[in-house]
């Protein structure tokens, strides 16, 4: 384990990713106590509308006079909450299905994987949009729509890992001793493939933040007035080219968070799964 840690410490890109993720997690948790105008999540001051960036308002203000800096920082909480919720639900659906399909195979395993294929047959963004629209606007339906879109990535990943894990000698031995299949699956195979699931989830969170921003941009994500990066950018289009800060800063926040999770995920994968190590 220590050698793995050392490997990670030498990977500058992965460290930068871990740093970014750390900052975003910190802002998401402590944001409401840190930002200069926490009440601007909902309050409006029309008279201070559309001020350019200044000392009082680092990122300027929006057309309701709300401090954009506060709203971008508070948006980290919104984004992370949503992404973690989605990753959790998608894992809860995808991991058991992948485990069963990979271990038992047969017609049931085949059926599970064909369903997975169908979900993967539509670009995830298109599927997420259709689902989010059918489920009507709201945080809950955005989370559900994104979870239903993302679970097949987990089941496919876990399926492949389980297929190769079930040929291990210790699985044969336990089968010979008559250990219940579910016990083998969840207590013995799952811990062995957990690291690959963690990598998939880390990269997935970055991807989900991006998808959620698109939903917000299209107006079928987090409803107003809750601070949301995508929705803020959508709103900014009415104020271009004069009030550029409205579009610029929320996009920068999306960029940095997705970048953070991608770099961290890549770094973790390099350590856990040397097969895919980036050639240097």
């Amino acid at each position: 384990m220590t050698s793995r840690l050392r490997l990670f410490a030498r990977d500058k890109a992965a460290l930068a990713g871990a740093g970014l993720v750390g900052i975003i997690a910190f802002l998401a948790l402590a944001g409401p106590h840190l930002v200069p105008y926490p009440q601007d999540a909902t309050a409006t001051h029309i008279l201070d509308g559309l001020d350019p960036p200044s000392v009082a308002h680092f990122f300027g203000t929006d057309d309701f006079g709300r401090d954009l800096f506060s709203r971008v920082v508070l948006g980290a909480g919104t984004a992370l909450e949503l992404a973690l919720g989605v990753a959790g639900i998608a894992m809860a659906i995808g991991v058991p299905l992948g485990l069963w399909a990979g271990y038992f195979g047969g017609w049931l395993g085949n059926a599970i994987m064909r369903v997975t294929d169908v979900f993967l047959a539509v670009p995830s963004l298109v599927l997420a949009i259709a689902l989010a629209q059918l489920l009507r606007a709201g945080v809950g339906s955005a989370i559900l729509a994104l979870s239903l879109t993302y679970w097949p990535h987990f089941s496919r990943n876990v399926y492949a890992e389980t297929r190769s894990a079930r040929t291990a000698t210790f699985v044969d031995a336990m089968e010979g001793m008559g250990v219940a299949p579910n016990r083998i699956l969840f207590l013995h195979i799952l811990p062995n493939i957990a690291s690959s699931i963690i990598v998939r989830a880390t990269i997935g969170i970055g991807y989900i933040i991006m998808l959620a921003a698109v939903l917000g941009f299209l107006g079928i994500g987090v409803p107003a007035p809750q601070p949301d990066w995508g929705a803020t950018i959508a709103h900014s289009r009415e104020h271009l080219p004069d009030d550029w800060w409205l579009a610029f800063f929320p996009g920068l926040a999306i960029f940095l968070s997705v970048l953070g999770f991608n770099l961290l995920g890549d770094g973790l994968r390099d350590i856990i799964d040397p097969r895919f190590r980036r050639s240097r």
Partner: protein
Amino acid sequence: MLLFLTRRVLLGIPTLFGLVLLIFLLIHAVPGDPAVVLAGDQATPRQVAAIRAQYGFDKPLMDQFAIYVSQLAHGSLGVSYLTQRPVARELADRLPATLELAFFAMTLAVGIGIPAGLLAAQRHNSWIDHTLRVLGIGGLAIASFWLAIMLQFIFSMNLNLLPVHGRLSLGMQAPRRLTGFFTVDALLEGRWSVFTDALRHLILPGVTLSIAPLATIMRFTRASVLAVLRRDFVLYERAMGYPRAILMTKYILRNALVTPITQIGLLLGAILGSAVVIEDIFDWPGLGSYAVQSIATDDYQATLGVVLVVGFLYILINIVVDFVHALIDRRLVEQL
């Protein structure tokens, strides 16, 4: 080879069937009367009744599915309650615009991504390699809709270099529809000014859509060229004094390009997905802006039509990619 193609097409059918089933179940999973859901919130009772009769929503579920499938088989995707036109016809009118944009973006991604990946691999660990890597990682983290707005802001609104939106400038007459691709049709008609105008309109949305696939293709090319460079046959051919250019194009690229090419199918799907948002931003009259418009007006038949058509295209593209892949690597033909 023909057998390979046939089997691959047959394998696509269950997936397509599954997609239809999924959408059918989606319509029914939503709480409320499916006829009302499909018709939209502002539909008149008569429109609702018409949809109920068309899809047989008063019949058992199995019959309903049979009716739905036969409707699709006859090319009917329902009627948009907003425009009162068949969704299938509206989509057919808009499809070429989306395809032109997607192909343009893909051409940029392949045309820049593969040489860039090759360069990075050849200058392994040099400053070029590092710069390209940073750019590639950054390219995958940018939200495309944000990039689109920033490009509009810089190149159209401030520098006035490129048009903000649309496929052609106002007053410019669209070329006669042969392929539906404005650039191609304009060239076929020999109208140079229309061609350049159409091309200028393609640049910003095309560049926006190409960034993520470009970064992916560059990454895959670099990795697979590096892997091939380490193989024994390369060492042997180098030792034999093969000219570097021939070695690169004839032996290394042919082996190394298989992986990036297999990615193209997935990436085209991703482009079609992002096109939904990007077309809306650039007022590009394709499937994507149609989807956004139908979302805004709760026109479910229209949205689901887009999902079906994009899913169908995606399955089709993957069949084509597998076929090209098999042409490059004949070993695959025996595997299937």
